[in-house]
C-alpha cells in the first residue's frame, strides 16, 4: 500500500539537526529517532533507549536498545549517541539551533556500547523533555553537510522509513524500513507532499491526490465532512494570545478618550483595562463561528491537561457589561481608541480573528481598528515593541514552566528569561516561583508551584489568552490516524483499517 500525505508547510532541510522548526522536526522523525520519544499525548516513551533513570542530581543514564540497525546496516552504539549530541547544537549556519535543548547538558558519556550517561550542569528536571529533541545519527556522518542530507547520501537513520527521493518544495518519497526494530508501518511507500495553500491541500484530498492531509482549515471543514472522509482533531494545544504593551508609560496604539484624572497614560498598565479587554472577547463565538469548533477558549498559557496548568483558571466568560464597568473603574468611561495588530499568513484565520476581536471591543465602548500584515513584516516589529496589542502564538509547548518563563517572567534575555515577554511585564513573585520550579526535581512540588504561578499571572493578565488551537487531520475513510499533541504529522501513525 502506498500513502500520500499532504503537509501544510515545506521543510528547509532534511538535516535532523539543522533547525528547530516543526516541519523539519516532523519530517525527520520518519527517518531518525531519539533515545526517548513523546507519544501522541506527550507522554515520554522508550525509543532507542529502553530505559532511563536519574542516577544523581545531575546525571541521567540511558540503556540503549540492543540490535538496532541504521539503514546502512551498521548497529547503533553509544558513540552514535555521543556524536549526535555533539553535532546537534553545533550545525554551522543554523538559523535556529537545537542548542536550546542541550544548554543544561555538561557532557554526554558513552559508558559502554549500550549505555549512555548524560551529565547536566545543574539539576535539570526538564532533561527528559529535551532528550527527545535530539535525533540520533551514525557517528561516521558527524561531518555531513546539509547538501548531503538533501541528496539522500547522509539520510541514514534508525527510523521506520528509509529515504528515497526529495524534491525541495515539492515532495519527499520514502519506503518502509524492512529492518525496523519496532512496529513496521502499514505502508510500502509514503509520499510527503508540501502543499502550503490550505484550499489546494483540501482539493488534493478531494481529488484523490492525497490520502491524508494535515491542518485542515476550519473554513473547509464542512466540505471535507460532507465528503467520504474522516476527520480527526488533535487535542487543543497551540496557545494563541494577545500581547500587551504594558511595560511603559506611553504606548503607540492605545489612547484614552478623555480619561479621568489620575488614570494611567498607558491604559494597558491598568490591570482592570486588561481584564476589561479580556471580558470583552466572546471566545465561544470565535470558536464556533470562525473556527468551526477547532479551538478551545483559553484562560492561561496552557491547556489544563498539560503539566503545570492550573485547573482553577478558566477562560473568562464574555461579559460586555463587566468590561464596560471595569473600564469605567479604571478611569476610562469614555472609552479608548486602539489599533489591534496581527499577522495574516501565519496562524489559522489570523486576520479574521483580529477583525472579530476588534468588532467585539467596539461593543464595549472601545473604538478599535484592526490591522494585519505579513508575518515577515509583522513579527520583527512585535519584538521591537512597535505595537500595543498584537495577536501572537507561542508554538506548541508541553509544560507550564517553559511557557511562563518565555512569556511572563521578567525580560532578561542574557539569562534566557522572559525571552518572549515583549510587553515587559514584570512580577517578582511569578519570577521567583518559575525560577524555583526549574531547580525542583520533585514533579509534584514543581506542578504546585507552576499552578500557583499561572493563577497569579492570569489574574494579572500580562497577556490575554484567547484560545488553544487544535489541528485537524483529514483522511480517506480507510485510514485511521491519531493526532499528536505536538502536531507532528507522522506517516507511521497512520494505520490502514482492515
Amino acid at each position: 500500500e502506498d500513502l500520500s500525505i499532504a503537509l501544510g508547510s515545506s521543510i528547509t532541510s532534511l538535516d535532523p539537526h539543522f533547525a528547530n522548526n516543526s516541519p523539519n522536526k516532523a519530517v525527520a522523525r520518519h527517518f531518525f529517532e531519539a533515545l526517548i520519544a513523546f507519544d501522541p499525548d506527550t507522554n515520554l516513551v522508550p525509543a532507542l533507549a529502553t530505559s532511563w533513570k536519574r542516577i544523581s542530581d545531575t546525571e541521567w543514564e540511558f540503556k540503549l536498545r540492543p540490535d538496532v540497525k541504521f539503514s546502512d546496516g551498521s548497529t547503533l552504539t553509544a558513540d552514535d549517541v555521543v556524536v549526535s549530541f555533539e553535532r546537534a547544537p553545533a550545525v554551522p549556519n543554523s538559523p535556529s539551533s537545537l542548542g536550546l535543548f542541550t544548554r543544561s547538558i555538561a557532557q554526554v558519556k558513552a559508558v559502554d556500547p549500550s549505555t549512555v550517561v548524560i551529565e547536566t550542569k545543574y539539576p535539570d528536571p526538564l532533561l527528559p523533555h529535551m532528550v527527545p529533541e535530539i535525533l540520533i545519527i551514525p557517528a561516521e556522518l558527524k561531518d555531513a553537510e546539509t547538501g548531503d542530507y538533501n541528496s539522500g547520501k547522509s539520510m541514514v537513520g534508525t527510523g521506520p522509513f528509509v529515504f528515497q527521493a526529495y524534491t525541495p518544495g515539492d515532495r519527499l518519497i520514502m519506503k518502509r524500513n524492512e529492518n525496523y526494530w519496532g512496529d513496521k508501518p502499514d505502508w510500502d511507500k509514503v509520499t510527503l507532499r508540501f502543499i502550503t495553500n490550505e484550499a489546494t491541500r483540501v482539493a488534493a484530498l478531494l481529488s484523490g491526490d492525497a490520502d491524508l492531509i494535515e491542518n485542515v482549515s476550519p473554513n473547509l471543514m464542512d466540505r471535507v465532512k460532507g465528503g467520504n472522509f474522516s476527520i480527526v482533531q488533535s487535542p487543543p494545544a497551540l496557545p494563541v494570545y494577545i500581547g500587551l504593551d504594558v511595560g511603559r508609560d506611553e504606548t503607540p496604539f492605545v489612547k484614552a478618550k478623555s480619561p479621568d484624572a489620575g488614570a494611567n497614560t498607558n491604559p494597558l498598565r491598568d490591570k482592570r483595562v486588561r481584564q476589561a479587554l479580556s471580558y470583552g472577547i466572546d471566545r465561544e463565538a470565535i470558536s464556533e463561528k470562525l473556527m468551526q469548533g477547532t479551538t478551545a477558549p483559553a484562560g492561561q498559557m496552557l491547556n489544563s491537561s498539560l503539566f503545570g496548568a492550573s485547573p482553577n483558571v478558566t477562560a473568562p466568560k464574555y461579559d460586555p457589561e463587566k468590561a464596560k464597568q471595569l473600564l469605567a473603574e479604571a478611569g476610562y468611561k469614555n472609552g479608548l481608541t486602539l489599533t489591534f495588530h496581527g499577522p495574516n499568513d501565519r496562524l489559522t484565520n489570523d486576520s479574521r480573528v483580529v477583525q472579530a476581536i476588534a468588532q467585539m471591543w467596539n461593543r464595549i465602548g472601545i473604538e478599535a481598528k484592526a490591522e494585519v500584515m505579513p508575518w515577515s513584516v509583522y513579527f520583527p516589529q512585535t519584538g521591537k515593541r512597535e505595537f500595543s496589542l498584537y495577536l501572537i502564538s507561542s508554538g506548541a509547548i508541553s509544560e507550564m514552566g517553559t511557557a511562563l518563563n518565555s512569556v511572563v517572567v521578567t525580560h532578561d534575555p542574557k539569562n534566557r528569561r522572559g525571552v518572549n515577554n515583549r510587553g515587559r511585564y514584570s512580577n517578582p513573585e511569578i519570577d521567583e516561583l518559575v525560577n524555583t520550579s526549574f531547580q525542583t526535581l520533585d514533579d509534584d512540588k514543581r506542578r504546585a508551584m507552576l499552578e500557583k504561578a499561572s493563577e497569579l499571572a492570569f489574574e494579572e493578565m500580562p497577556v490575554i489568552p484567547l484560545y488553544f488551537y487544535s489541528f485537524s487531520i483529514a483522511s480517506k475513510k480507510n485510514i485511521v490516524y491519531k493526532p499528536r499533541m505536538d502536531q507532528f504529522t507522522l506517516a507511521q501513525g497512520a494505520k490502514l483499517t482492515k
Partner: protein
Amino acid sequence: MNSQPLARLVQAFLVMLAMTVIVFIGIHLIGNPVDILISPEADQMERDRMMSTFGMDKPLWTQYGIFLMNALQGDLGTSFVYNLPAIDVVLSRLPATLELALVALLLAVVIGIPLGLYCGLRPDSPVSRFIMAFSILGFSLPGFWMGLILIMVFAVELGWLPSTGRGDTVEFLGVQWSFLTWNGLSHMLLPAINLAMFKLSMVLRLTRAGVTETLSTDYIKFARARGLSPQRIVGVHVLKNIMIPLVTIIGMEFGSTVAFAIVTETVFAWPGIGKLIIDSINVLDRPVIVAYLMIVVSLFVLLNFLVDLTYYALDPRARRGGRA
C-alpha cells in the same frame, strides 16, 4: 550587430547591479531576517551568533561590498533558510517553472495563433465574435480566481485531472522534467492552462490584429493579383509577416509568464521558483532573493537575445539591414 550583444550584456549587468542594491536596501528596510528565522526561545547570545553567521552585524554597505566581492567569484551567498548555496536553491526549482512556462506558452501559441488567424480572416463570423469575447474574459479573469475554478471543476467535481503538484518526473540532461511522462503531463495541464490563459488571449488578439493589418497591405493584394491560392497567401505571406511581431512579443512575455507563475504556483502547489520567491520574501532570505532576480534577469537577457536571433532569421530587413 556586433556591438548589440555586448551592449545588452553591459545593460543587463547594470540592471543586476541596480537590482542588488535595491534588494539590499529593501530588505534592510523591511526587517532583519534573523528576527524571523530565529527560534522564539533563543537568547541574546544565540541571536548574536546568528547575526554574525549571516553577516548581519556589519553595516549594510559592508555587507553589500562583501556580497559584491563574492558575487564576482560566482558565489551569491548561502541561503539563510536552506543552508545551501542560494544559486543551487534557485536552480533546483527553475526547471519546474521553466517547463510550466514553456508548456503554457506553447498552449498559448498552438491555440492562440490558429484562433487568431481564423478571427482575422473571418472577422464578422459569429464564431470569431465568440472567440473574441472569450479572449476578453481570458484577459480579464484574475489568475488566482481562474485557477481555483479550474481546480474546482476539473479536479474536484469532475475528477478528470489531478489538482496539484508536479507529477512523476524523468531525468533528461541531468534535470528532472515532468512533461516526459503521462502522469507528469496530466499534473501540468491545469496549471499550464491557468498560466496560458492570459497569453493565449494576447497571442490571439495580436494574431488577429496582425492578420487584419497584413491583409490590407498592397503586397497581399498583389499576391492575389498574381493568382496565388488563398492557402499560400495565408500560410506563407500572411503568417510570415505576423510571426515577426508575434515572436518579439512572445519572447518578451515569457519573462512575465515566469513572473506570473508566482500566482499559479501558489494555487496549484507547483514547486517552482515562484513559490520559492514568495517563501523567501516571507522570511527575508536575501541570498535567495538576489539569486532569483539574477537568474530571472539573465533569463530575460538570454530570451531577448534569442528573440533577436529569431528576428534576424524571420525578417530579412533586419538581417541585412545591420550589415549594409
